[in-house]
């Protein structure tokens, strides 16, 4: 048995750089070999030890790989610093366990089996009589839910409205279709709690290209919004004329926000489907427009403007829609297609 030690050490040292880690693996290999010694034929102990050493290394690599792959799923709220690290760690632990307790039994079992025990999706699917893809999707949903519950637990808040949870979930899952369904952007403008809680959730997906959000509060932001829209749209290769039309339309809707609502936001995004184009959403939580149809008529103006804001922007863009509710705010959605049919 002792004669195996130098050989095992050599095998492992050749594959693992970290000396301390290598020694751990040597010990683990020897323990396994020792435990199996009685079952292994005499003379076969050496090859058995070699295979065991390789397996131990392979599982280490798998572990590291899984760690690397899952790293992005961790919501890092704030890096803890020394004096209150203990307290924070305890709060965090409580938050995680509280969040876990809010998942359904099934969700919790599945998540723990995969993330903690390390069972892969295929074998989980086998146990559940499902497919690996379905299990992975279920895991994604559970993780999204866990993130939301964790943030709520850490913040010690209950969402103030019924819409909060669905919105946070949609943001956490990064599901844009769902976000549109629940009108997540508008809710974040209206709900302070969600606006605050959603920051780490949104930061996760920040690397998303092809979208800019410009907060609109003052005159200067109007210029910033139209310049950002022009810059983004230019990536699709719009002509100079079209870029000017887009920038002018954005200028008009952004000005409406400043004039009538005081503050809001303009979100410009690039579309690939159904056709390439640029999509602009301008939303505010202002007083709303009492008569949208009238506001769309040329020359209708409630301030000393030309009354060209909305009807003018409509003429500049290919698609245009206004949704407004008294007391809740206004959302203007408009699109310019890159390729005309």
């Amino acid at each position, binding site marked *: 048995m002792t004669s195996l030690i130098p050989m095992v050490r050599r095998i492992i040292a050749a594959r693992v750089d970290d000396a301390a880690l290598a020694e751990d693996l040597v010990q683990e290999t020897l323990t396994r070999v020792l435990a199996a010694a009685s079952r292994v034929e005499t003379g076969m102990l050496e090859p058995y030890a070699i295979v065991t050493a390789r397996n131990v290394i392979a599982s280490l690599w798998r572990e590291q790989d899984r760690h690397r792959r899952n790293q992005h799923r961790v919501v890092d709220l704030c890096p803890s610093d020394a004096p209150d690290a203990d307290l924070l760690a305890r709060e965090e632990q409580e938050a995680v366990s509280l969040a876990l307790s809010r998942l359904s039994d099934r969700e919790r079992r599945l998540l723990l089996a995969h993330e903690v025990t390390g069972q892969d999706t295929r074998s989980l699917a086998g146990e559940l009589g499902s497919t690996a893809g379905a299990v992975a999707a279920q895991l994604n949903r559970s993780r999204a839910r866990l993130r939301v519950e964790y943030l709520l637990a850490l913040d010690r808040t209950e969402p103030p409205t019924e819409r909060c949870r669905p919105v946070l979930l949609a943001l956490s899952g990064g599901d844009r279709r769902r976000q549109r369904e629940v009108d997540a952007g508008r809710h974040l403008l209206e709900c302070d709690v969600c606006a605050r809680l959603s920051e780490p959730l949104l930061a996760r997906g920040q690397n998303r290209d092809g979208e800019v959000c410009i907060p609109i509060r*003052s*005159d*200067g932001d*109007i*210029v910033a919004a*139209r*310049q950002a829209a*022009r810059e983004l749209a230019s990536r699709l290769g719009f002509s*100079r*004329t079209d*870029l*000017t*039309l887009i*920038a*002018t339309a954005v*200028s*008009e809707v952004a*000005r409406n926000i*400043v004039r009538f609502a005081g503050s809001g936001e303009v979100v410009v995004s690039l579309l690939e489907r159904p056709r390439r184009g640029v999509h602009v959403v301008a939303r505010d939580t202002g007083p709303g427009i009492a008569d949208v149809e009238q506001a769309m008529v*040329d020359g209708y103006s409630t301030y000393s*403007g*030309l009354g*060209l*804001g909305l*009807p*003018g922007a409509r*003429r*500049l863009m290919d698609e245009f829609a206004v949704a407004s509710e008294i007391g809740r705010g206004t959302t203007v959605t408009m699109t310019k297609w890159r390729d005309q049919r």
Partner: protein
Amino acid sequence: MTGGPKLVSILRQGAYLIASVHTALDDSQMVRFRDDLVEQIGRHRSRGVIIDVAALDVLDSFGARTLRTIGELARLRGAVTVIVGIQPDVAFAIVSLGMSTGSLVTALDLEEGLALLDHGVGAGRSTLPDRRRPRR
């Protein structure tokens, strides 16, 4: 006005003022520009004003309305305003937007604008004195 490069320069050239907009202006900067210009028309007893907007990439309804207002204010103060340097895309956007700009006197560039003033543009509706009209 806050620090940084000048957004607009207003230069005096004889009886004319030449105002060049150097960069995109937001609404309040636009309003301040309007007030500055109208004040200087009085101070310098100017008879003509040229506003060079070649550097503007967007002239939306507010921008165009402000130019129109400047034209009107200047006219009431006895000066003719010529807008020069409107870019082709900007012109297209203004038309698409549906703005009526009929009251604006325009010229292609600064040179044309000065020539227009020298020849007593809009003499009928402005208070430009007769002696500025070309003799025929």
